[in-house]
């Protein structure tokens, strides 16, 4: 009996692999192997919670944005990010349902450090230029990773990404407009932007994750590629990014803070100074420059509004719908 169950599972697994290899899409109610579901949960809940936590670095500059126009634009941008978070958490909620879990569990996982948020959102912001740089270059990096998954084998995620990627293009334009205004402004404004780039450059390289699992001890890129969730490796994505953005950054008259950076014509790849992967590891343990402050803010607002959730009857089973 046990043998035949295992055989049946094997058949299902083979059929599943045939489907995704033929380019077919998996829906929420379809059968899927457990490690596929696990990989999706990890990826999508992290993506969703990162959109929510990612609102915080820009929130730091929203009330201070220089003009009414910029205040309105950055508010709309942060609102989009929170909206993406909502959309993605819905996708994740469908995946965790068989385990009897809800959004509340994801929030608790975040607080307990079991669910991580993206490494790029653990960094400090220092000036208004950071807000522009995040919109331009961090959202630009997000566009690269997200478009790489537009053809993802899991249909609900692919659909969400399609919407998100379209909005991220506006965000990158919004960020670029801020950067251009600063780059073509006074010496003080130019310095502000250059300083932001100097501080954010290692974070932008780290954005795509380590090139190999050996460097940091773990990487989930192999399984996501095997299951056709994404197409390219971390390093390939970083190379695409450098090809797209190095000329643009230099075009604005900025200096990239890496003297070793160059395009190697023989190897057909960018040579660059590796960021500090030990710092990356610290960030993944929520020990980055702003990890604890941002988690604290999230936790505080959660506790502070407990009475509201209780009044709405949401405390036991928050947004389980």
């Amino acid at each position, binding site marked *: 009996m046990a043998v035949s169950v295992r055989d049946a599972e094997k058949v299902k697994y083979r059929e599943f692999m045939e489907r995704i290899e033929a380019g077919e899409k998996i829906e929420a109610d379809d059968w899927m192997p457990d490690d596929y579901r696990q990989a999706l949960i990890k990826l999508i809940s992290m993506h969703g919670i990162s959109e*929510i936590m990612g*609102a*915080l670095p820009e*929130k*730091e*500059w*929203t*009330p*201070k*944005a*220089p*003009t*009414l*126009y*910029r*205040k*309105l634009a950055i*508010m*709309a941008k*942060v*609102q989009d990010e*929170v*909206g993406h*978070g*909502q959309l993605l*958490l819905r996708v994740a909620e469908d995946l965790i349902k068989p385990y009897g879990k809800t959004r509340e569990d994801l929030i608790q996982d975040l607080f307990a450090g079991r669910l991580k948020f993206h490494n790029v959102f653990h960094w400090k912001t220092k000036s*208004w230029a950071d807000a522009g740089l995040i919109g331009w270059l961090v959202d630009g990096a997000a566009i690269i990773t997200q478009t790489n998954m537009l053809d993802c084998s899991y249909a609900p995620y692919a659909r969400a990404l399609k919407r998100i990627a379209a909005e991220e293009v506006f965000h990158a334009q919004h960020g670029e407009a*801020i950067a251009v*205004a*600063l780059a073509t*402004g*006074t010496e*003080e*404004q130019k310095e502000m932007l250059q300083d932001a780039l100097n501080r954010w450059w290692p974070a932008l390289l780290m954005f795509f994750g380590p090139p190999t699992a050996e460097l940091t001890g773990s990487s989930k890129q192999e399984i996501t590629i095997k299951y056709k969730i994404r197409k390219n490796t971390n390093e390939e994505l970083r190379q695409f990014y450098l090809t797209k953005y190095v000329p643009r950054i230099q075009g604005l008259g900025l200096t990239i803070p890496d003297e070793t950076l160059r395009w190697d014509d023989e190897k057909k790849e960018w040579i660059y100074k590796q960021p500090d992967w030990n710092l990356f590891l610290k960030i993944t343990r929520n020990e980055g420059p702003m990890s604890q*402050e941002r988690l*604290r*803010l*999230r936790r*505080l*607002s959660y506790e*502070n*509004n407990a*009475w*509201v*959730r*209780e*009044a*709405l009857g*949401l405390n036991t089973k*928050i*947004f389980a719908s």
Partner: protein
Amino acid sequence: MKPQYKEEVIELLYQLADDDLLVSYRGSEWLGLVPHIEEDVAYSSITQNTMGHANIYYSLLEELGEGKVDDLAHLRPAGERKNAIILEEKNGPGHWLYGEPRYDWAFTVVRNYFYEAIKKRKIDSLKQSSYEPLRQVAVKIDTEIPYHLMHWRTWFEQLVRAGGEAEERMKAAVARVWEDIGGVLSLGPNEEKIVEAGLIESEAVLKERFLEDINKKFTELGLKMPGEPGMKKGDGRAGFHTEDLEEALAQLSEVYALNPAVPW
């Protein structure tokens, strides 16, 4: 335009613009701190609309030769501001930027609900204003106000009806906001001239309509009407303000004030 008439137009426009700027500034501080994700998206929409309204009023002032929109919004000192004091008050203890903000959602719901209710009555009145540009603006803004009002009214009803701690918090917030909500109704020391110029109806008329709205809602919810709307901390239209306004202006102008002469 007669100089006297222009003066009254300018006076009223500053009141309308500064009210919307301060209430939307306080809204922007709530980003990421509201009770749930869906509310973050909804409240942000309202805040953007409201800041957009401030922008429209400041643009009318710019057309009247008062200066650049962003100078008017960011650089005028507290003493020149015309907003009602209740709108400049902090959202609660702490600071929005990692200063342990323990913001008060009940206060925010009540302040915004009453504010939008009065704004609706003002906008309706402005649709008959003697000043044509204001009439046009009122028609445009009126397309958004009903949604804002519905949003805050729904929160108000839900939290009062929930009973227990929520109801107690809401009652306390009503008592607190009521003490100064009269500042939003106020048309300031020049009320008579503003009304005579046909720019908007009188405070007494606006107040009567607002009380009618609130009375109806309070009766429905079994809440006791708190009496006359107060202006305990003073009339912002006459230049009375609190430290909270100084703090808000310092934050919202921090970057712009580095160099107001250049594009950002």
